[in-house]
């Protein structure tokens, strides 16, 4: 016990005693003159590092205590402040305490003049030039990068294979099923609300599969000539994919009191493209450039809803030439 105490005191004394600057054997005189004494900055840096240490300890404490109000925020705050203090301390140290001096040296005289000249001559003879090489590299990098940036433009137009954009799983007689695969019956479809359906047996992720079904009073339907016969007993179905940017149409505006409120409409939540379900999916508001594709419906003898054919126009966001073909 006594010996340990002696050792501790001796250690403390060793640390505390004022050290005299002495050159070790073999140590040279310093090149840069010692910095002017800067006790303020030293103290500041030390305090900043201590603050960093305190914050880091606080992080550990918060972590161990676990159930504090605003626990996550305290964790973030303590570790963040710790980093901040370390950075501040380092900045102070670098700018105020570390001695800097700019030294300049002349280029040494060439030692092997003849050999160097030979090598320069050799390189010149091969026709290789550093400047040309640099130009070539820049050109290659710039050209390839530009090409890479411009390539996706191909997706805008019917340059390669457009057939799959027109493909949908809908065929005459295909049943409309809900997300669990249960077929919809015409009697399931009520007014004033919207249903999402898929082509039976299709991949639900396929753009052409999802449709929205709504029922409107038959006397309010005002389908254009091209869509006559598309509705079944007042039930109409449209592609669920907005023709503007391809979002899913999930908003159905249905007035409680028709005379004084906005008319029924299918609305896309992304950019508020608004389509009139009573008029074949005509755009009534928003950025969509073409009508919502309409799916013809039939009611089977057992009451199930079935497709009467394919959509009247291509589904999904528009592209160049989207109107040139009917979906397949």
């Amino acid at each position, binding site marked *: 016990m006594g010996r340990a105490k002696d050792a501790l005191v001796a250690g403390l004394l060793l640390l505390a005693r004022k050290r005299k600057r002495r050159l070790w054997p073999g140590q040279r005189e310093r090149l840069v003159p010692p910095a002017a004494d800067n006790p303020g900055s030293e103290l500041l840096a030390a305090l900043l590092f201590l603050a960093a240490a305190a914050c880091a300890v606080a992080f550990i404490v918060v972590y161990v205590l676990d159930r504090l109000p605003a626990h996550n925020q305290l964790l973030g705050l303590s570790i963040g402040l710790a980093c901040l203090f370390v950075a501040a301390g380092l900045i102070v140290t670098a700018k105020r305490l570390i001695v800097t001096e700019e030294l300049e040296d002349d280029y040494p005289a060439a030692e092997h003049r003849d050999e160097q000249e030979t090598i320069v001559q050799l390189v010149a003879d091969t026709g290789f030039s550093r400047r040309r090489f640099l130009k070539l590299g820049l050109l290659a990098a710039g050209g390839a990068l530009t090409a890479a940036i411009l390539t996706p433009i191909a997706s805008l137009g019917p340059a390669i294979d457009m057939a799959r954009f027109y493909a949908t799983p809908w065929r005459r007689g295909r049943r409309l099923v809900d997300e669990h695969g249960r077929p919809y019956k015409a009697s399931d479809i009520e007014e*004033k*609300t919207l249903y999402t359906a898929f082509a039976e047996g299709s991949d639900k992720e396929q753009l052409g599969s999802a449709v929205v079904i709504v029922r409107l009073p038959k006397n309010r339907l005002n389908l254009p000539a091209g869509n006559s016969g598309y509705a079944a007993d007042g039930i109409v179905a449209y592609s669920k994919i907005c023709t503007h940017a391809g979002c899913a149409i999930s908003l*159905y*505006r249905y007035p409680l*009191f028709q005379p*004084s409120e*906005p008319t029924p409409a299918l609305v896309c*939540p992304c950019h508020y493209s608004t389509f009139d379900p009573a008029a074949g999916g005509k755009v009534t508001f928003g950025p969509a450039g073409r009508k919502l594709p309409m799916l013809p419906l039939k009611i089977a003898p057992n009451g199930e809803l079935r497709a009467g054919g394919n959509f009247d126009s291509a589904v999904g966001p528009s592209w160049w030439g989207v109107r040139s073909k009917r979906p397949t």
Partner: protein
Amino acid sequence: MKRLLVIGLLGLAMPAAAAGAGDVQLGYHLFGQYCVACHGVAGSGIAPGRRRLAPSLQGVGALAADFYLRTGYMPLQHVGMQPHRKRVFFDENQLQGLIAYVASLGPGPKVPKPHPERGNLSEGLHLFTENCAGCHQVVAEGGYVTGALPPPLKEATPTQIAEAIRIGPYVMPHFSTKALSPSQVNSIVRYVEYAKHPDDRGGWAIGHVGPIPEGLVTWFLGMTVLVGLCIVLGRRLRHG
């Protein structure tokens, strides 16, 4: 004089049978005073002068009356505007009377009694996302739809949420018991109650309205601080 005439006319249409706890007689008088100008005699939907200004109230039941009166949606300031949540216009006694009177106009649904404690939170989130979040936002903060403003649901009571699902006020779609069963409504109500005080693990929720304010914070707060730091770090050391 004119009001007296209206009340006199109403007397002829006064339904004999009355149901509910409220004072139907009181409700009848209040109806004549505040509602008949738009909803018409006995809530027929045909206003004086044979104009159709407002929906018929025959058969809407206590459910709709309870919802519209207790949210302050009715009486409406002028015809055609979207009703907004306001101070409730009537006192409790008058409310009960009016609700009982509207319920007596025709057979209709009763005021629902949702039990959010029986609901399932994760099912509620799923149903809310599927059916409601398109307009009301996923944390029920309200949003936009062309032609109307879906309200935030912070002040909606469980009963009012259950009522609104069945009514579809203004341009909201309506959901029958076939589309959303009472137990599914319980789950939705439970989720909406949860969404009123969501567990914000990240701290500052910035209004719970999603990526736009989050982006603004990132760009304008975060980037300003970072650029400021860069300027401070890059400044040349001044001796002195």
